[in-house]
């Protein structure tokens, strides 16, 4: 490690803050809470600012360059979102204020609920969940509550295609369901025979990601939904890949009963370190009563002279709160801004360009890399990061080498159904030049893999730290550079 830690920069006696003299009576802390030795770093303010500013410059972010992290939809986050979120009326309101004094914020959340309902075809939306997997967990709890309300307690099995997102089995297991994986067929769709065989009277539902993690739209989605419904199950749609469908397909119209939205993917709120996320959940009519609350509603209709009065309601058989107050309101402002700036036509164009960009990029790298499911893709595609004639080059080597070309690596080793997977999602916010230069880097790397594979094995070469020891990172969980002397 070439960078010093803040502790190593410490110099005894240096100070960043001079506290004013105490002008109130003081009380000593009880002796058992005092310690002799507390080696906190001692630095001036300027040292601290320079240290962390420098570290932030070593970071890679979507504001700096292309970030084709498959399934994460790392699109550019427009600055107008930030400007709106900083408006004092939004930034300084408090959820415990009387509703009469925060009508603007409540109107925004109400309108965002309405927009998400319209975009995805659902009867009601709760903005509470804090992120995608939290939305999944909420959705699966709603499915459980529905079955329990019908007395169907034997429905304990959740079907999960092996092309679904990795969080789906976790969300099901955490909610108490037994996970039954469903295979993918040769075209990358859900294997209908396997699905039919698994559909018995114990099925609670299916969690399906469409487009799936191969970046493919399931050609039999209507049949998949029908089979599960006929078995008495519900259909959960993982909305992580909604970016490919905006304005074109509404999951609710397909028959999907419940879905989460990732505002931090599809609707351009900050993602990955810049978060928090936000994972609202939308449901069909029959699941409305189970949604978590509070949900924003009109509690007094307006007329020609008076605007409506917005307030809260709790659905009658609600699973309860899943988050304090109203969820991540700051993200609601940003997503509302994004949707408003685009409008219906603009959102459709987002999906069209996301799919076009992915197919354009795929057409440039096809041939140099193996494409296990060779179809027109949606917003992303999955390559095999391996070459038959250079067996010791792996997806990880390709991903690391991309960093030398100043690109963030794509998602690798997921989905598990592709050997040495490289999952690439360019998003609609990248222009042709960026995609061309990424394609060129991928083609160069394929050539290097054959001509000088050591370049890949030793990559990255140009980054502040070289290849990290992932085994040590996973096994040797000491994250602290300083340990008290008598600790184990």
């Amino acid at each position: 490690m070439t960078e010093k830690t803040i502790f190593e920069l410490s110099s005894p006696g240096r100070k960043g803050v001079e506290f004013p003299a105490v002008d109130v009576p003081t009380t000593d802390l009880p002796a058992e809470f005092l310690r002799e030795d507390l080696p906190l770093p001692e630095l001036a303010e300027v040292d601290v600012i320079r240290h962390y500013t420098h570290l932030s410059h070593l970071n890679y972010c979507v504001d700096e360059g292309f970030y084709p992290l498959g399934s994460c939809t790392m699109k550019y986050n427009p600055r107008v979102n930030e400007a709106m979120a900083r408006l004092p009326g939004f930034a300084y309101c408090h959820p415990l204020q009387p509703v009469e004094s925060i009508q603007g914020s409540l109107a925004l959340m109400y309108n965002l609920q309405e927009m998400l309902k319209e975009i995805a075809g659902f009867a009601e939306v709760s903005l509470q969940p804090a992120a995608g997997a939290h939305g999944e967990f909420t959705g699966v709890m709603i499915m459980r509550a529905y079955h329990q309300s019908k007395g169907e307690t034997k429905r304990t099995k959740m079907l999960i295609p092996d092309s679904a997102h990795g969080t789906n089995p976790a969300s099901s297991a955490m909610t108490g369901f037994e996970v039954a994986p469903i295979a993918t067929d040769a075209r990358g769709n859900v294997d209908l025979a396997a699905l039919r065989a698994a559909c018995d009277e114990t099925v609670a539902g299916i969690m399906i990601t469409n487009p799936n993690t191969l970046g493919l739209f399931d050609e039999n989605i209507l049949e998949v939904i029908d089979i599960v419904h006929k078995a008495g199950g519900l259909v959960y749609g993982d909305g992580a890949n909604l970016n490919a469908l905006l304005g074109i397909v509404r999951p609710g119209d397909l028959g999907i009963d419940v879905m989460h939205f990732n505002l931090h993917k599809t609707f351009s709120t900050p993602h990955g370190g810049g978060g928090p996320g936000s994972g609202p959940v939308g449901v069909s009519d029959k699941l409305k009563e189970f949604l978590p609350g509070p949900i924003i509603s009109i509690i007094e209709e307006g007329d020609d002279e008076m605007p409506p009065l917005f307030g809260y309601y709790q659905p009658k058989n609600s699973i309860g709160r899943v988050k304090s107050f109203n969820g991540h309101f700051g993200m609601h402002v940003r997503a509302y801004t994004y949707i408003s700036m685009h409008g219906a036509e603009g959102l459709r164009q987002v999906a069209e360009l996301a799919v076009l960009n992915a197919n354009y990029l795929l057409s440039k790298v096809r041939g140099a890399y193996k494409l296990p499911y060779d179809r027109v893709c949606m917003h992303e595609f999955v390559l095999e990061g391996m070459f038959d004639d250079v067996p010791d080059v792996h997806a990880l080597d390709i991903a690391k080498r991309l960093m030398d070309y100043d690109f963030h690596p794509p998602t690798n080793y997921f989905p598990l159904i592709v050997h040495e997977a490289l999952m690439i999602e360019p998003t609609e916010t990248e222009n042709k030049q960026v995609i061309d230069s990424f394609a060129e880097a991928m083609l160069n790397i394929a050539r290097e893999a054959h001509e000088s594979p050591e370049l890949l094995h030793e990559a990255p070469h140009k980054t502040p730290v070289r290849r990290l020891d992932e085994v040590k990172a996973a096994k040797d969980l000491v994250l602290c550079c300083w340990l008290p002397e008598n600790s184990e």
Partner: protein
Amino acid sequence: MNVPADYKYTASDEWVKLDGKIATIGVSDYAQEQLSDVVFVEVVLGEGDSAKKGTTCATIESVKAAADVNLPVSGKVIQVNEDLSKTPELVNTDPYGKAWMLKVEISDPSEINGLMSSADYEKFLQDRSH
């Protein structure tokens, strides 16, 4: 790819070594190679547990992925390899030896017929690579 002749195999890449009614169970060389560096192994069944074929008996995590190990035959667990929690890398270095995961007293010997021979498993691995 190492596929020892005196072991039996499953389509989910477990191996079984038989000694009378006692089956020793682990994962194949192919499985460890697919997983790459193994960083964590947890045998989830304990000594004395009886479980049916297909039950998750252990989980393996590598730097790439997490995978379940399924019990290839029904039976009662008589011994668990305690070393793997401290030295999970044995799965990479000695998959058919020191990385055995558990020993089971088989309850239904007919289930052995459903397992693959080494020749069948080798053919299965060839057909699977796509």
